[in-house]
Each structure stands twice: as C-alpha cells, then as structure tokens.
C-alpha cells in the first residue's frame, strides 16, 4: 500500500481488508435510550418543551458545540486533546468582526476568520506533531495565547456591525430546519466517512492506539497530527461563524467553556480518552443528550451555572464508567518512551 504524498493522499479510500474492530452499538443504544427517556420526561413535565420554538432554539444552541465536538472526536481518538478550541472561537469571532468593520466586506471578514482558525490549528499541530510537546500542555498554553490575543485586539469589548443577510446562518431556516443543523449534518456525514472509510481515519486510530508502532508501520505521525489540528482549527472557525451570525456580535469571552462541553460530548459518546477508538455517531448521540439535558434544566428554571456543574459531573462519571480510561500513568510512560 503506497502512501501518496501530500495531505490529499490521506483522503483516498482505505481499501485494505482490515476493518476497524467489530462495530458495537451497545453504547450508542444506551445513550439513545437515555435520550428517549429524557425526551419523554421533559415533554410530560414542561408544556413548553415540545414546541417548535423551543426545539429549534435548543438545536441552535448546541450545534456550535457540536461542530467542535466532531473535530474533537478525531483529536481524542488520536490520543491527544485540544483545550484551545474555545479560545480559537473567541479569536476567530473577534477577527471576523474587526476585519468586517475595517474593510466593510463580510466576505473578507469570513475569509480572515477561517484563515485565523487554520493558523491557530497549524500552531497547535506543529507543537504537538512536530515539536512533540504533550498535547494538553501545548494546547493549554495556546488556549491562553489565543484568548489573550482576542482580549488584546478587542480590548474585551463587544463588536457589532454585521450586514443584515449574515444572520441567515444563525437564525435562518432551510426546509423548515435551522440552517446550522444542515451545516452540522453535512459535516457529520463527512467526518463519519473520513473516520471509517479513509486512510486518515485509520491512521488516527493507529496513532491513538500506539504512536510508536504507528510510526514504525510507516505512518507520518507528525503530518497526520498536523492535519488533525488543522481540522480542529477549521471547525472552531466554522462554529465561531455560526455563533457570531446567531448573536450578531463578537466578544473575546465567546467560546469560554466550549472545550469542556465538547470533550464531555465526545467522551460520553464512547470515545476512549486514552485514544485508539471512538465514533462520530456516538459523539452525535451524546451531543443531543447533553443538549436536551441542558435545555431541560433551563426550562426547569435551573440557573445555567447549575447545569455547568451537572455537565462537569457528567464528564467525570462518563469517563469513570466508560471503562476506557487506561491508567494515566501508562499514558505518561508511553509519552516518555516517545521522547
């Protein structure tokens, strides 16, 4: 099997006979069952729940996390983590708004936003893939840097002044469904395809299982990780565009806590925090579950801070009971061996 040069080579179909480990739906079914239970309970408790207005606003709220969670699934499967996604959202939001106001052209603003997102992803990817800095430290440092840059260039002020049409992405509808839901569905299909059917998907699983053996079996680990983080940067930029379009303003505080929720959805969806395996469909089901829980708590007049507490607890519980968490000490040992 020849490895085609260039990033594009990674997206060729994976034609080898070896399939990923046998597909297990048990976890997803459990989550889906939970989702159904919560859905029924919510509709019985609150008359406001089962209304088009509420369901639409619920979907609009968590699609932004969802776009990031898709990319985060790839990153966690590869045995890494990205704590900077929330800060990338902040920096991209602010850049879009500032370029838009400076040039008067929304197109230039969006292009700048995507460029900034990709640049942030490239920084992370170079640090993790090439400089071999452990992902949690590298992305923690870049989290501070990106957020600091967003604060610095915007002076922590809220920026507005977008043209009318821009709000279509954030509050518009296509065929009766929120625009961002369509964006999310398209992305989900692409991500699922890439993870299950392309070489890239198999490479990130291999790297997640064991970066050393992945390296010795001829995978360009550095390049794959760089691509992985570029994707995360791109998806963060996309999430920022949707978010800015929905609220029609940009602020450096946007995106705070997004990383935690994205990681929660991914881990709850059955992706191993130690890397090696995981699925996009698991992430999507978990995302809907967390979204509905958050929405339910809001309808029950529980303050949003309490739902933060509950989601934090959910993250811990899902990691502990997923049975995936390998010993952290083992992971450290593997990393040390690599250095």
């Amino acid at each position, binding site marked *: 099997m020849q490895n085609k040069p260039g990033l594009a080579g990674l997206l060729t179909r994976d034609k080898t006979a070896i399939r990923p480990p046998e597909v297990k739906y048990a976890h997803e079914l459990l989550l889906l069952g939970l989702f159904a239970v919560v859905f029924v309970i919510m509709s019985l408790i609150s008359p406001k729940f089962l209304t088009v207005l509420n369901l639409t606003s619920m979907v609009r709220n968590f699609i932004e996390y969802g776009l990031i969670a898709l990319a985060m699934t790839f990153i966690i499967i590869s045995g890494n*983590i990205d*704590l900077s996604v929330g800060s990338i959202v902040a920096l991209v939001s602010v850049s879009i708004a500032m370029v838009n106001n400076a040039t008067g052209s929304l197109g230039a603003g969006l292009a700048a936003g995507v460029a900034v997102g990709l640049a942030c992803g490239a920084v992370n990817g170079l*640090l993790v893939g090439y*400089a*071999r*800095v*452990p992902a*949690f*430290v*590298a992305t*923690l*440092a*870049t*989290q*501070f*840097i*990106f*957020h*600091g*840059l967003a*604060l*610095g260039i915007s*002076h*922590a002020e809220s920026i507005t002044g977008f043209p009318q049409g821009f709000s279509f992405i954030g509050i518009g509808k296509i065929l009766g469904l929120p625009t961002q839901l369509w964006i999310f569905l398209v992305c989900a299909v692409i991500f699922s395809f890439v993870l299950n059917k392309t070489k890239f998907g198999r490479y990130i699983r291999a790297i997640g299982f064991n970066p050393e053996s992945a390296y010795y079996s001829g995978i360009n680990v550095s390049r794959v990780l760089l691509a992985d983080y570029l994707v995360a940067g791109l998806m963060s930029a996309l999430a920022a565009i949707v978010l800015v379009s929905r609220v029609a303003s940009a602020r450096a505080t946007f995106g705070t*806590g997004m990383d*935690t929720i994205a*990681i929660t959805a991914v*881990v709850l969806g059955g992706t191993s*925090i130690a890397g090696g395996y995981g699925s996009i469909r698991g992430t999507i089901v978990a995302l809907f579950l967390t979204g509905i829980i958050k929405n339910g708590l809001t309808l029950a007049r529980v*303050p949003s*801070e*309490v*739902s*933060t*507490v509950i*989601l*934090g*607890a959910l*993250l*811990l519980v899902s*990691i*502990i009971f997923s049975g995936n*968490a*390998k*010993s*952290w*000490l083992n*992971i*450290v*040992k593997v*990393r*040390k061996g690599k*250095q």
Partner: protein
Amino acid sequence: MRWAAERSMNMKHLIKSREFILTLFILVMVTLITLINPAFFDPKNLMDIMRNVSYTTIAALGMSMVMITGGIDVSMGAVLSALALSCGAMAVGGLPQPVYLLLTVLLGAAVGCVNGFFIVKTKVPPMICTLAVSSIVSGTIIVITNGKWVIGLPESFNLIGKGSIGGLPISVLIMTAVLAWNIWFMSRSRLGRNIYAVGGNPGAARLSGVNVDRTLILTYMISGILLAIATIVYCTRLASIVTDCGTNFHIPLIAAATIGGTSILGGSGRPVGTFLGALILELFRTALVYLKISTYWEQAVQGGLILFAVLLGAISIINSKKAVGADAK
C-alpha cells in the same frame, strides 16, 4: 586537587543551571525596566512587587509539586475563588481569626485530597479530572453566593495581607518560610524524594517500594494546603471578595512552574526555579504597565512564556538524548 576539581565541576553545574540563567534574565529585565522608568527602582515599588509575587509563588510551589508527579491542576483558579469566599464569609460571620484561617487551610487540604483521590482511584487523566472539578466548583460558587460579593470584612481581616513586621510585609515573610520549607521538603524529606521518583518513572517507583497512590494523594493534599495559604495571603489584601476573584489564577501558576524548569512530563523541577519564574511573570506585568501596553495582553504574554519554556524543555531533552546516543556509540 580533588576538591578544586570538584569545585570547578560544581561551578559548571551552577552556571548551566536553570536558576542561574533565570537570575541573569531577571537582572537584565530589572535593568531595562529601570532604564525605561527610574521610578521602578524604588524600595516601595520593589516591595509591592514582592507582595504580588508572594501568593503566586506559594501556590505555584504546589502546582510545581503536582507537575513533578506528571500531573497538572487546572482547578486551582476556581478553588482559590471558593477558598477566598469561604474565608471571607467565615470572617464576616464573626469566627475568631485563627479559627477561620485554620478552617480555610483544612478546606484546601480537603479539596486537594478529593482531587488526588479521584485521580488515583479512577485513573482519569489529571487534566480532565481537574477540568471537571473546576467547572463543578465554579458553578457551585455561583449557586451558593448567587453572584453576591463578600463585603463588610472585619478590620483584623487585612492583617496578613497588608501588615508588616519590622518593615517586611507579612506576606513576603510567609512566602520565604514556605519557600524554605519547600526546598527542604523536596530535596531532603522521604515524601519529597518519592514525588520525584513517582514522576520520573511510576513503575520503577512502585517496584522500589514507593506507595505510588499514597504519594499522589498526599501531593495533591499538600498542594491544596499551599493553595489555601496563598488564598489567605491574597484575599486578606482585598476590601471585598468578588465571586470570580480566582478566575484564570492557574495560568500564572503553570507559567511560573514551567519557566522555573519544572518538566511537564514530571520527574524534575526545583522550588527556587518556581520562585524565579513567578518573579519573572511579575516583572513582565510591570514592564507591560510601564510600556503603557493594555493589561488585556497579559494573558497572551503568560501563554507565550509557557510555550517558550516548554519548547526550551523539549529542545534540551532532544539534546540530552543526542548526547546519550553519542556516548553509546
């Protein structure tokens, strides 16, 4: 002869050490800032800087201990807010000063224990575990306080933060004591040596008879106690305690430890380096003020410094590996 040879070896080590480089760097920075603005080199201003460094150093020593075991604690910011609020609330409630200070320290130890216990028993990566704890704690704060500040603090509350003995601020004296204790603890005590052993190679530590789980839990507990002491030094300077006073407090702590030479992979790091790291951060902040750069850039600078220090560490690891390889040949 032998003594002389040994002494020159020691000198070489000293000059090559991280602490020496950091000290040189600090001297250069102080000179530069003084050139920009001579008002900087005023005893009162220098004392203010030391006051600011004091609580960062105390908490960063705890962070450094956690990082030496191969872990990290991003919940320190949220926990600092919680400790400061409860300390203030107890003071307003009329408890005698020694009692509420002691209770704050015990609370810090308890939170540290919970963190350590979770990490050891569930094998959840410390990063994720403390991230979850952080969101749980900061949410709980809002629920309990409803966003209200703690006000109406008694006069005696500010004794530690603002008072001084013989011209030296009490906070700086506390920092000196904690630093001295930590230097002894990390280099001479059994638990301190075990911490390095666990961070260096947990498997080898276990085989040589170290109780890894116990060491880890104790490390998080001690770092909780240090955080509580830092909280006391910090919050007793304030006139009222804001609910999010500790937000992002963990950033300078991680920065101070990594700049000071604590390895993010665990196994190495020294208290004096951490102190110098905290001092450098404070000098950078002062420099930003004197250069009339908005303080909004501070966080970006701290992140950049962490990254710089981490990359420096990565390069030195690669170099030492090359040297080992050359020896083997």
